[in-house]
C-alpha cells in the first residue's frame, strides 16, 4: 500500500510575525535555487515551491508523512537560518490539503496581504513558481496548483474591486488628478519641493504620462538632482510664481514652516485657468497652500487629510470586497480539488487493468503445457472476455466519477486499491 501524499503549506507572515523575525527567515533570490534543491531532498518531500517576500516566507510542498512535516520543515529552515531556532515556534503556520490550497489562492489574490488587494503579490507568486520550475522541484501537482492559484488571483482582480483605488497618499494624488483631467499627456504639473514626497509624486505622475513635469526647490541643487534623476524640468525658486498661471496641477511638498501660495499674493494667478479647474494638491506638513485658496471659483485644493480620506475610503471598499473574492477562491479551490480527484482515478484504472491481466496471465500459464494450441487460444479468448466483462462496469463508473469530479473521494479510491491489492502507479503518469 502506498503512503498517501498531500499538499502542505508551511511558513511565516506579517499576520503572526514581526519584521525582526520575518527578516531572519527570508530567503534571497540568490539562495533560492540551492534551498529548493536541498528541500526536495528532504524525506517525504516530492515537490516544492518557496515564496519569499518582505511580508512572508512560505514553503509549498507535495509531501508524504504529512504529520511529521511541520517539525521537519522547521528543522530544515533552522539549518539555513540558525536564528530561527530562537523564534517562538507558534509564529509558523502549517496547513495541509484543502486548507493549504485555499491559503495559496488567497495569497495570490492579495487577500492575505498587508494591504488588501495589492497587485505585487501575484507577480511574486508567479516568480516563485517559475523558479521552482527552473530548478525542477515543481512537478505535476504543484505545477497545476500554482497555475490554478495564478488564475484565481487574476479572476479576483478582474471580477471584484479588491485591487482597485489608490492606497497611498502619492497614488491618491494621481488618482485625483485623473478625476479632473482625462488626457494627462497635454497637462503641465509643477512640484514645489524636491524631497522624498515630491519625488514619489513625480514618479507616479510620470507613470501616468503627464505632458510636462516641472520641479522647483529652495535649494536649487536638490531640484537639479531630482530633475536629472527623473528627467524633469527645473524652474528657479525665485521666479516659479511667474509660471503658475500655465500649470494645470500644482503640488506642494516642501518642509517650509509657512505658506508658499497665499490668496492675497497668488490668488489672482491661480484662479484664471480656462475651462478646466486648476488642481492644487498640498501634501506638505505644515501646509504649503493657504486654505483660503479652496474658496477660489475654479480651483480645487486638497490637502494631505483629504488624500488620506481617499486612501481610507478605498481600503474600506477593498475590505467590503472580501466576501466576493472568497467566493471566487472557493470556486477555484473546488476546481483544483476536482482535478486532483481525476489524477487519483486515472492511475487506479490502469492499476486495476494491470492487476487483472496479471492474474489472468498467471492462471493461463498453468494450463499452457496441458492443452493444445487451439484450446489455449480458446482459453485466452474466454479469459479476456471474462476480464473485460468484469472490468466494464467498474471502469465506466471510475471514468464517470473522474469526469464529473463528484461522488468519489480519495478514501473510496484507497478502498478500491486495498480490495484489489493495487500498487500506486501515480509516478508512471
Amino acid at each position, binding site marked *: 500500500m502506498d503512503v498517501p501524499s498531500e499538499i502542505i503549506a508551511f511558513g511565516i507572515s506579517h499576520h503572526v510575525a514581526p519584521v525582526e523575525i520575518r527578516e531572519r527567515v527570508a530567503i534571497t533570490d540568490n539562495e533560492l535555487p540551492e534551498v529548493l534543491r536541498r528541500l526536495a531532498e528532504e524525506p517525504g518531500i516530492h515537490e516544492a515551491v518557496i515564496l519569499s517576500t518582505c511580508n512572508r516566507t512560505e514553503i509549498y510542498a507535495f509531501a508524504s508523512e504529512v504529520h511529521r512535516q511541520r517539525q521537519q520543515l522547521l528543522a530544515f529552515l533552522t539549518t539555513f537560518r540558525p536564528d530561527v531556532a530562537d523564534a517562538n515556534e507558534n509564529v509558523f503556520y502549517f496547513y495541509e490539503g484543502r486548507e493549504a490550497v485555499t491559503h495559496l489562492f488567497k495569497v495570490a489574490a492579495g487577500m492575505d496581504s498587508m494591504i488588501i488587494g495589492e497587485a505585487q503579490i501575484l507577480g511574486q507568486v508567479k516568480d516563485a513558481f517559475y523558479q521552482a520550475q527552473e530548478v525542477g522541484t515543481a512537478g505535476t501537482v504543484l505545477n497545476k496548483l500554482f497555475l490554478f492559484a495564478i488564475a484565481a488571483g487574476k479572476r479576483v482582480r478582474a*471580477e471584484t*474591486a479588491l485591487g482597485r*483605488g489608490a492606497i497611498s497618499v502619492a497614488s491618491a494624488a494621481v488618482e*485625483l488628478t*485623473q*478625476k*479632473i*483631467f*482625462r*488626457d494627462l499627456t497635454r497637462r503641465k504639473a509643477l512640484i514645489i519641493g524636491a524631497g522624498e514626497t515630491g519625488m514619489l509624486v513625480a514618479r507616479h505622475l510620470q507613470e501616468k504620462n503627464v505632458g510636462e513635469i516641472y520641479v522647483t526647490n529652495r535649494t536649487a541643487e536638490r531640484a537639479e538632482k531630482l530633475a536629472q534623476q527623473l528627467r524633469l524640468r527645473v524652474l528657479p525658486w525665485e521666479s516659479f510664481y511667474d509660471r503658475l498661471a500655465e500649470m494645470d496641477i500644482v503640488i506642494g511638498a516642501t518642509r517650509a514652516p509657512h505658506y508658499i501660495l497665499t490668496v492675497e499674493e497668488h490668488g489672482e494667478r491661480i484662479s484664471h*485657468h*480656462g*475651462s*478646466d*479647474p486648476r488642481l492644487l494638491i498640498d501634501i506638505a506638513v505644515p501646509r504649503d497652500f493657504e486654505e483660503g485658496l*479652496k474658496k477660489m*471659483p*475654479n480651483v*480645487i485644493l*486638497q490637502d494631505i487629510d*483629504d488624500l488620506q*480620506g*481617499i486612501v481610507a*475610503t478605498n481600503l474600506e*471598499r477593498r475590505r467590503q470586497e472580501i466576501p466576493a473574492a472568497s467566493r471566487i477562491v472557493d470556486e477555484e479551490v473546488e476546481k483544483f480539488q476536482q482535478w486532483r480527484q481525476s489524477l487519483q482515478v486515472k492511475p487506479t484504472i490502469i492499476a486495476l487493468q494491470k492487476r487483472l491481466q496479471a492474474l489472468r496471465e498467471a492462471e493461463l500459464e498453468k494450463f499452457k503445457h496441458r492443452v493444445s494450441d487451439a484450446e489455449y487460444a480458446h482459453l485466452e479468448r474466454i479469459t479476456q472476455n471474462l476480464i473485460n466483462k468484469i472490468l466494464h462496469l467498474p471502469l465506466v463508473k471510475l471514468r464517470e466519477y473522474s469526469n464529473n469530479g463528484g461522488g468519489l473521494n480519495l478514501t473510496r479510491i484507497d478502498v478500491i486499491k486495498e480490495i484489489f491489492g493495487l500498487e500506486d502507479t501515480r509516478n508512471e503518469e
Partner: protein
Amino acid sequence: MEGIIKLLNVVLPVLYFYTTYLYAIFFFREQQPAGQKATRMLHTTIAIHIVEIILRGVYYRHFPVATVWEAFSVIALAVALIYAYVEYRSGNKTTGYYILIFVFFIQLFSSAFFDTLKGEFPPFLTSSLFIFHVSSAILGYSSFIISAIYGLMYLMLFHEIKQSHFGIIYRRLPSLEELSEMNVRAANIGLFFLTLAIILGLGLTGQVYVSFSPFDAKAIITYIAWFIYALVVYGKVKARWPGRVMALLSLGGLAVILFSMLVVNLFMSNFHEFK
C-alpha cells in the same frame, strides 16, 4: 393593432424603468454583470420602442409627433438611442443611470397621457419636409437634454471633489474634463439640428400654417434655447469659460426646453397645434 399599440405604450415605461434600475445597480453597487445586462436590456427596449413608433405611424397614418405626448415618446427614444451610441463608442456605462432616469420619466408622461390624432388631419403631417423638420427638432432637443444631463453630472462631481467627498460619485463618474467635453459636444450637435429645424420650419410656414407670428411663444422659446446652447459652445471654444458655467448654462437650457414642451405647448401656443 390599436390594442398592441396601447399595450406597448404601457410596457415601454416599465421596460425603461427596469433598464434604469439595472444601470443603477451597475453604478451604485459596482456590479460588472449588471452593466452587461443593462446594455442588453437597453437595446431590447430601444428595439421595442422603434416597433411601437412604426406601428403608430402605420396605424394612425402620420409621423407620431402630432401631439405633445407623442413627441415626448419620440424624444425619449432619440435620447436613448443617442446614449446607446455614446456608450458603444466610449465603452463607459457609468453615465447610463443619469440619462435613462430622464428617459424613463419622459416616456412615463407620454404613456400616461397617451393620445393622438385620429380621423381627419392636415396632409402635411406625412410630407417629407415636415418629417425632416420634426426629426431635426427632436434630435436637436434630445442632444440638448443629453448636454444638460452631462452638465448635471459635471456639477455633481465638481461639488463632491471640492467638498472632499470621495464616495460613489467620485469613484464612478468619468473625469471632469470628459464630462465637460460631452456637455459641449452634445450642445454642438443639438445646435446643428435645431438650426436645421428652424430653417426647415421657416420653409414649411408657407404651406402649413395659416397664421404664423415670429412672436409666437413656442418660436421665442426655441430661439432662447438655441441662444443658450450657442453660449455653451461659445464659452468652451472662444471664451474658455469654466466648465461649471457651461454646465449651469446647459441646465438652464433644459429648463427652457421643458417649459417649452409642457407649459407653452399645452397652454400658450396655437402654433404647432394640429387639431
